[in-house]
């Protein structure tokens, strides 16, 4: 199970789908159920948060790229 910070959207979605299938199959033990719900809740919180607060890291990288493109374009002129 990857830590939240390294989780991609598609990994998150896959893990959530797996949990749902497990729970819906009703084969899950009630004690494990608590664990699964906790994990699902973590993933949901993570995803909802990530949708609303894009990572600063990415912003920085993209901003640098933008600057570069800016200067390149300026050079052209």
């Amino acid at each position, binding site marked *: 199970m990857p830590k939240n910070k390294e989780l991609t*959207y*598609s990994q*998150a*979605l896959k893990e*959530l*789908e797996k*949990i*749902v299938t497990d*729970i*819906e199959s*009703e084969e899950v033990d*009630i004690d494990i*159920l608590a664990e699964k*719900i906790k994990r*699902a809740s973590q*993933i*949901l919180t993570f*995803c*909802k948060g990530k*949708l*609303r*607060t*894009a*990572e600063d890291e*990415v*912003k920085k*990288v*993209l*901003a640098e*790229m*933008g600057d*570069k*493109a*800016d200067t*390149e*374009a300026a050079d*052209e002129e």
Partner: protein
Amino acid sequence: MQKISSERPALSLSQLNGLIKSAILDTLPDQYWVVAEIADLKLNQKGHCYLELVEKEGNAAIAQIKANIWAYEYRSIGNRFLKATNEPLKQGMKILFLASLLFHEVYGLSLNIKDIDPTYTMGEMARKKKEVLDRLRREGLIDRNKALELPLVPQRIAVISSPTAAGYGDFFNHLDNNPYGYSFVHTLFPALMQGQDAEGSILKALAAIRKQKSACDLVVIIRGGGSVIDLNCFDGYPLAAEVANFPLPVITGIGHQKDDTVVDIAAHTKMKTPTAVAEFLISGMRSFEENILGLENRIVTSVEELLRDERQSLISFAQRLSLLPIRLAAVHRNRLMIISRDIQGRVKQLMQHEQNRLTRAEQAIRHLDPALVLRRGYSITTLKGKILRDAALLKSGMLIETQLQNGTVTSIVQSGKEIRKSAKEQRTDLLPGFEGA
């Protein structure tokens, strides 16, 4: 003709030019429909339009002439052309025009354009566009970008546009003020969005994005919504091919109502306006969130169901448990009742038994009552006040007293020999009644 100082007769230049002028007008007096390419086009301050027209074979001009459209006509001709083709008259276009010849003594020969038939140019443009599209199809490029999957969450967006382009501000406002509060990471890669240099400029921007493609989810090319003119730069092969080949999905919002440009067709998704592109991206984010919210709901529902079932079985178990003491108590009460009834019975029985014994003893005792014995004919003999049981104690002349049922007899002993035997018999008779006790 004027004579000049020299011997030879000579014409002044104006005379010659006058001759040329009349010769041309005499020989070519009409208006002609002509096809030519615009090599250059300028408008002066008065609104007159000056053109350089060529006919080319390959890259070489095989014919060339100046032309003009007077301001008065240019206004209507230019507008009609723009309306029909969505493009202004400009360099590189092939046009079919109606013109008459002009010869000016100072400026020389030129054409005066009276009308332009835009359908020819449209056909020409359509033919060029079709050629590009055919080539893209032939090379298998036309659907290549469409084959890419849209990102699960379109959050990191590389934007190609010009900050001066109309619709640019709308796009970012719309994106950043979305009602769900989604946060987009968008980076502008500035490019010219119209004019001759637009294609090269957009290609450069794409090249810059390509270098950092892992940091982006998709590419957006946007241009203002208002102006519908000058879309030529989106119909060329090089840009369309690069868009088709691009490793990230390309979304266009070039803002025009008429036919799609070649770039629109080669892109992954074509939207009408920059705002529509923003909507599209927001809906992509929303779609992902709805997806996970749906999963959340399913989890909640399942867990509630599971818990309800568990609770139900707990309740029924508890009910069974709570009934158990009552049942146990009932069982024990029954047993107690049985035991107590048992005990009562036994006690009664025992009492009865004892009662019987008592009754029998009473009867036996009653049998022994001396009065009864006397009534049956027995008698009690006393010697000096003591009951006499042994005749051997008697001597002649002794005085004994005999008690009968009724009354007492006093006797004097004569002999006592025979009495012992009869006394023994008497005793045996006295005993019955004690045996059953």
